[in-house]
């Protein structure tokens, strides 16, 4: 099967998945308690809205329509990339997502960079020095890394790098330096997981027959690990990292909130708090698309990394 045909087929099968996601999100929104109109009109917290005001806003938001009609209207608009206006800020959701996406992307890409470099690096070291003191220390370190809650690490990093040593800004985006702490706090636990996964995968590969042959040919341990075992070991790691990357592209909510980065995650969190239906809907569709695209990309990367894998075939 040609790769283009394969991708086309995958994309077609993903359409009902995405539709299903949006319908589920819509139903969940409808079932969630709370009246968005009341929330909008009582934001100042002092004065109760009149029935006339409630009626005006309800009509303006199209909430008088039956649920299926509301859903279909939204779906029709979203196909053209128009997600409507936020109930809370009255701003265009599409514009707001486009404005916020670069911040989330930057955090995601840098966090991915940390994870790939440190996770793979530590994993290779642990595998190369299996059962030595290096391995034991790094295993402990990675256990700690994957156990630390992200929000706690974020606060600790702010305390150390901003308050104590005054090396980095505490909040907001002001260039590369301001992304280091949020990205590392997002990446930390994944570094731990990917390092351990890399170690296990490499050790698994090292037990295979072709490695024994390579060693028998007199290749050094370093060359065996890096040139032979690592490529094979990368497959499960790539699956893990791909899903992880999709996750942070959906917004590293806690990190964005703590570090004051106005990304997609903090947008979604604010929307959930305020019961901002249109934003939540748009966010669900966006994350669905990201996951679907990430999975597709992972499949393609399998082929790039290991040509032995062919579409519809199993790796030997």
């Amino acid at each position, binding site marked *: 099967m040609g790769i283009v045909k394969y991708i086309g087929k995958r994309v077609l099968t993903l359409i009902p998945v995405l539709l299903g996601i949006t319908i589920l999100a819509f139903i969940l929104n409808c079932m969630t308690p709370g009246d968005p109109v009341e929330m909008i009109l009582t934001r100042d917290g*002092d004065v109760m809205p009149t029935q006339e*005001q409630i009626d005006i806003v309800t009509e303006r938001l199209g909430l008088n329509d039956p649920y299926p009609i509301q859903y279909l209207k939204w779906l029709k608009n979203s196909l053209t990339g128009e997600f409507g206006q936020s109930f809370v800020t009255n701003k265009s959701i599409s514009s707001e997502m486009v404005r916020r996406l*670069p911040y989330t992307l*930057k955090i995601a890409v840098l966090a991915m960079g940390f994870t790939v470099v440190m996770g793979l690096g530590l994993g290779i070291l642990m595998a190369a020095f299996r059962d030595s003191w290096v391995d034991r220390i790094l295993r402990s370190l990675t256990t700690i890394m994957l156990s630390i809650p992200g929000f706690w690490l974020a606060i600790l990093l702010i305390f150390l790098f901003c308050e104590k040593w005054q090396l980095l800004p505490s909040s907001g985006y002001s*260039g590369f330096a301001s992304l280091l702490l949020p990205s590392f706090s997002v990446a930390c636990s994944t570094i731990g997981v990917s390092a351990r996964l890399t170690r296990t995968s490499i050790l698994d590969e090292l037990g295979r027959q072709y490695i024994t042959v390579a060693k028998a040919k007199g290749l050094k341990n370093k060359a065996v690990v890096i040139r032979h075992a690592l*490529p094979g070991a990368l497959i499960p790691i790539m699956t893990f990292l791909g899903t992880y990357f999709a996750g942070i592209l959906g917004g590293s909510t806690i990190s964005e909130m703590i570090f004051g980065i106005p990304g997609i995650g903090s947008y979604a969190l604010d929307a959930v708090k305020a019961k901002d239906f249109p934003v939540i809907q748009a966010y669900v569709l966006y994350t669905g698309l990201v996951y679907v695209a990430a999975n597709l990309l992972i499949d393609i990367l399998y082929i*790039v990394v290991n040509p032995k894998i062919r579409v519809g075939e199993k790796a030997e």
Partner: protein
Amino acid sequence: MKKVSIRVWSLLVTMCVLVTAFVGCGNGDTQSNNSQESKQESSQESEASSENSEESSGTTSNLNETQELVLGSVRDIIPGDGDAYYVSMSADVWEPLTRDVEGAIEPGLAKSWEHNEECTEWIFHLRDDVYFHNGEKFNADIVIANIERYKKGPMTSTYVSIDIDKTFPGLLTTEAMDEYTVKFTFSDPVPTLEYMMSNYGTPMYHPDCFDAETGAVTSFVIGTGRYMIKEHVQDQYAIFERNDNYYGEYMPYIKTVRVKCIPDADARYAAIKSGEVMALIDNGAILTAQVEELLSSDDRFDVVMTKSHMTHYLKVNGEKFPFNDVRMRQAVSYAIDRETINEQLWGGLCTPAYGILSYRTPFYKDIQGEYNMEKAKELADEVLQGQRVAVDMIVSESRAASYPYKAEAEYLQSELAKIGLDVNIKILDGTLYNEARNNGEYNCTLDAHGFNNADPYSNLFGYIGTEGGSNVKYHFGYSNAEVDALLAEVKVTADEQKRKEIYDQIQVIAAEELPMIPILYDVNVNVHNKAITGYKTVPGVEWATIQWAE
């Protein structure tokens, strides 16, 4: 295998390069008043000017001109288009017709006003020396254009909504009597118009910055205030520049002010401690415990406290037993040791409250109460007849994040147990909290509210009027014919002294019958670095008086 290895390493190297290249890219959504400037350039300029000023390190006035003042805020001080006001009043970009200064109404863009005996016709005399930031003159036509804008509402905001019916109830006509005189005619008497128009009641914008059809702000707000918006990156920072053509009595010292949005409490604390920001300016910008820690551990900082318009209450469901009985509400009030709550949980910063009105309103009556557990038990026993009753106390998650409500709820739980109430504390997410409150599925709740203008009528009516919106909706179940009559009377009373007397009577009744049980009057706590002076709050921070210390 060698080819595969090359592919792997190529992939890894490519990823590293992409990461560096991509992350290093600047963002492109900076809005500037003059031209689109990149944020990096701005930061570099800022740093450069800061360095230059340090080098010159001369007089305070030099620093004021050259060194940017950076302030930290909980939220973006410019909510932007979509928000009724676009920018917070505390930024001093726009100005109202009248001002509420510590509860007293003072002239703003209107220098004086008068009304007929029935309070149905009001004439406002405008200042004739006011110019907008775009150089155009402020006059009666501008006021009329803004009133027309309010009619497009209600327009929502993170501050208070703009609603013509709230600020100008029963407005029939608005007319320009001459270039600087405006006349408002109402269908019913409006005795406190100057109160309702104060501050957020009448923001005056140049018509060029809003859509006449929808009322929506379409560009940077063009106001008449001491500062102009120079640059804004949504949810990141806003830069304000001094309006050197300001007409008013005193010109701000600092030429450029940057306000950073720092939503997280720990990050804000780190920012002020590291010197990244010189002061925190929003309500709740610093937690009580952090104030104590900061002041005790570092002598570079100072704290400025002012009375807040917020009051903390135990609000009760008066439609349900046991709080439908006034004796039970009184028992609870006697059982609350407000001094202990203040000292132990609020760092002694607040003031024990026994009256329903905020101690910041001009109509506040100083009412004192007492902590008397014996009396509380006696009253509770009359109601409960020796039985123990389970009550649900709900607390909003967001309130619990801003105030020590969780500890306060636990304290009340232990105290109220002594009078026969077994309190079940429920910390609820905002949506569930509203749902429980709206459906009356609670017995009591810790909550706070403030007053949106210096005249407390609308709030008092809402909370304790028999038909009051909050009273009905939140199931407070309070109804007193005498209070209703007093509220009806105060609504049409223009005489200030008479109004004060009526409000006094209402407060005495409320302290006796406790439709809501006041606990503490809140305080605004603002922390600043001693590198700046003239830091005062009104209750928002007054930027105009701030300057760099020598």
